[in-house]
């Protein structure tokens, strides 16, 4: 609002208020003077209307109350009394004051004046009226097709209305088919140039509701016949829907009787032509119905075209595409190898092109299924916020590795388990603010969500800095529930794992958040079904971390192909730091642990032959692949390093699915099978001194789940 406009309004109001004062004094002398009453009313009315427009809402509200009473005086319902005049005078003074102060609210004095006016009409209940904002036209997500009949009165032009503008407004609301009905237009001799003879039938497909359509006609509602009928609801999910047949539309519109339709249907030919020939219906009506049919079909077609832009594909088809690409990658690798040995420049050129294309094809194929986990993480911000609020706790969420990509189907199935874990963390893990500060912890608890690639897996960890788990309480609970025997010895880790058992819940109280009964066992089942594993670590008073290790079921990884005896293994390149040679003299055997010095440092190393239980004797000079596993450098000694290899991970069959240290297998170009090593698991197994013992020798041929 321009200042000068506000200034003009104020100046004008001062004039009106000055006039109002003298009018009121005059009215006291001549209480029956109708003109005076009218002018007093008019002055208040102007102030009320303009006040709201120039931002003096309080004045407008205040004046509204006075105007209501003055209106009754004007209509002769209330008499002019000296009391009324005095009250109006004090109201006038109040308006002047409010005008100067620019206040946005009614003070005590003003409210007293309002109460005084209300007393006059014996009404002390009504609230001070508030101008309601114009409701925005409601846009529903549902698209609806309406049939609108609009027949303006013949004199519509003399109200200054241009009916075409109304039709344009409808056109702007969505897909619109407008059919004019022109049969009432007379020949020129009888033609009244001022009359409107046309009416319309409009088929409109829109997100707007019926009220929005009625609003278009708001100025002409007394000047036309209008009917709005819902004829079709578009369900975007349905794919094979089709619109009604002509006969149905005509029946629906009442354009033809069922009997007449049946009579005609007994003959052959197109329905429209038959109806016309039998003269039960006019051409115009059939055309309008056909237009309706065409309109809705067109909209449906568009809907279908839209759906095509994102395509739903059976996951199995994608799987087989990934398999094929994997095999192509293998063949391409052989081609490149052959080309580089062959000294044929032309072949080398072709091999390079094939290599480039194959890589692109591989990346593309993989990206079809891969989605950054960030989309999942971001959903939890609201959850954390709401849960914390409900429980009166203060919790923040921190995320890491949101860009880590995971198979979409895995991500979809991760939502529920993660929600459950986060709920537990906030409900049971993080303490009340007072409790936290008494422990010297920050009042605000933290939930840390992280995702990272770990070889052929993605590890998602959910950490809280809450109370932590108490192994002895978990154990006692399990005994109480009859899950374990009282004398059963359990390690700490095993105690933590108890929370994954069905029927186990530690909460003694039922809260809205975690409820009772369904516990972490549900999470376990979900993760199992994704062939993932759950790890739990916890420190009392410091917090709990739950790690979900999920396989990249469809991943193609870059790996290093190595051999031990006759067996081939793939080590994911991502974890490899270096390859070094190791002669027997360099290795330091200290009890079961093997150590080696490399660049002046002592590193532990594991003999793959030993750890996988493969027979035979290691060659004099072994190769050691140095990997970064579980945050530490560890070596794996192998017989030979064959070379870099792109690998399609094939999942092992159920029988072999749980072999520790092996995450999958791959088929090489010549058809032999190589097992993919899960380095972390191998190192972990080695460290915790749980000596890995494979059942006999590793299988030469591994059954594949194709």
């Amino acid at each position, binding site marked *: *609002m*321009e200042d000068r*406009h506000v200034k*003009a*309004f104020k*100046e*004008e109001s001062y004039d009106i208020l000055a006039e109002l004062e003298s009018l009121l004094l005059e009215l006291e002398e001549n209480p029956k003077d109708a003109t005076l009453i009218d002018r007093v009313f*008019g002055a208040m*009315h*102007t102030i*009320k*209307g*303009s*006040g*709201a*427009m*120039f931002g003096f809402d309080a004045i*407008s509200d205040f004046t509204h109350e006075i*105007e209501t009473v003055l*209106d009754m005086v004007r209509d002769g319902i209330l008499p002019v009394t000296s009391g009324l005049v005095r009250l109006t005078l004090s109201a006038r003074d109040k308006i002047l004051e409010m005008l100067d102060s620019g206040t946005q609210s009614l003070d005590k004095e003003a409210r007293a004046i309002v109460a005084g006016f209300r007393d006059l009409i014996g009404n002390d209940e009504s609230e001070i009226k508030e*101008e309601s904002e*114009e409701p925005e036209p409601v846009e529903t997500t549902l698209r609806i097709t309406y049939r609108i009949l609009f027949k303006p009165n013949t004199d519509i*032009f*003399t*109200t*200054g*209305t*241009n009916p075409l*503008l109304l039709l*344009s*407004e409808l056109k702007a609301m969505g897909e619109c088919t407008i059919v004019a009905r022109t049969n009432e237009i007379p020949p020129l001799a009888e033609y009244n140039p*001022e009359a409107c003879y046309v009416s319309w039938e409009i088929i409109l497909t829109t997100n707007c509701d019926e009220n929005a359509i009625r609003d278009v006609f*708001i*100025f002409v509602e*007394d000047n036309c016949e209008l009917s709005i009928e819902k004829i079709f609801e578009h369900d975007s999910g349905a794919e094979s829907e089709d619109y009604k047949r002509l006969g149905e539309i005509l029946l629906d519109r009442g354009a033809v009787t069922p009997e007449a339709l049946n009579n005609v249907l007994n003959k052959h030919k197109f329905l429209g032509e038959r109806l016309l020939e039998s003269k039960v219906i006019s051409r115009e009506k059939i055309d309008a119905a056909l237009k309706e049919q065409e309109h809705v079909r067109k909209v449906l077609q568009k809907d279908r075209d839209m759906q095509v832009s994102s395509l739903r594909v059976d996951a199995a088809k994608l799987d087989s595409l990934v398999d094929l690409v994997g095999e192509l990658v293998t063949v391409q690798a052989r081609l490149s190898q052959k080309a580089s040995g062959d000294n044929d420049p032309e072949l080398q050129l072709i091999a390079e092109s094939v290599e480039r294309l194959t890589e692109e094809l591989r990346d593309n194929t993989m990206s079809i299924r891969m989605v950054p986990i960030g989309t999942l993480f971001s959903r939890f911000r609201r959850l954390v916020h709401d849960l914390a609020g409900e429980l009166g706790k203060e919790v923040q969420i921190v995320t890491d590795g949101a860009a880590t990509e995971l198979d979409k189907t895995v991500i979809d199935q991760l939502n529920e388990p993660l929600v459950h874990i986060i709920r537990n963390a906030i409900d049971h893990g993080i303490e009340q603010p007072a409790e936290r500060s008494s422990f010297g912890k920050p009042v605000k608890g933290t939930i840390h969500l992280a995702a990272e690639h770990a070889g052929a897996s993605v590890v998602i960890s959910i950490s809280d800095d809450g109370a932590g788990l108490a192994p002895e309480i978990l154990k006692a609970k399990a005994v109480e529930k009859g899950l374990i025997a009282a004398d059963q010895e359990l390690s700490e880790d095993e105690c933590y794992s108890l929370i994954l058992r069905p029927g186990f819940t530690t909460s003694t109280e039922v809260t809205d958040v975690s409820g009772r009964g369904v516990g972490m066992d549900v999470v376990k089942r979900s993760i199992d079904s994704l062939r993932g594993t759950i790890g739990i670590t916890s420190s009392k008073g410091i917090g709990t971390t739950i790690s979900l290790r999920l396989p990249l079921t469809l991943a193609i990884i870059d790996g290093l192909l190595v051999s031990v005896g006759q067996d081939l293994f793939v080590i994911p390149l991502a974890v490899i730091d270096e390859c070094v040679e190791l002669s027997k003299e360099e290795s330091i055997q200290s009890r079961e642990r093997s150590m080696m010095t490399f660049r002046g440092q002592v590193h532990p190393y594991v003999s793959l032959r030993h750890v996988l239980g493969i027979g035979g004797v290691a060659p004099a000079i072994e190769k050691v692949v140095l990997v970064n596993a579980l945050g530490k450098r560890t070596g794996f000694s192998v017989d030979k390093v064959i070379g870099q290899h792109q690998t399609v991970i094939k999942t092992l069959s159920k029988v072999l699915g749980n072999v520790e240290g092996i995450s999958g297998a791959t088929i090489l170009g010549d058809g032999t099978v190589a097992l993919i090593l899960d380095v972390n698991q191998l190192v972990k197994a080695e460290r915790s001194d749980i000596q890995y013992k494979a059942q006999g020798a590793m299988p030469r041929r591994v059954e594949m789940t194709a």
Partner: protein
Amino acid sequence: MTKRIITVEDSTSLREMISFTLSEAGYEVAQAEDGQDALDKLTEFKADLVITDLNMPKMNGIELTSSLRANQMYRFIPIIFLTTESQLQKKQAAKEAGATGWIVKPFKPDQLLQVVRKVLG
């Protein structure tokens, strides 16, 4: 072609506010203080739209509407009147006299422009 609008209102502040809003939106605007003043100005200023208050001295908005509808030159011109919710009877009278539409006071500049576009295209 620039559309021309005449705004008829006895309150100077309101009239200027309306004129300002419309000019800013690109319309050519004339101002009149009452119905009679409007009729005088409309002989020179060929308007495409009339926006008029209802209560005015000399000639009110309803009388103005009736006399424009009787004038061949302005028989079909859109006429918008300003009203308040409490003026139901006058609103009916204005519609019967041949008004095109209305704006309820108080209104915001956007609401004014919305109605103007609705009847002017």
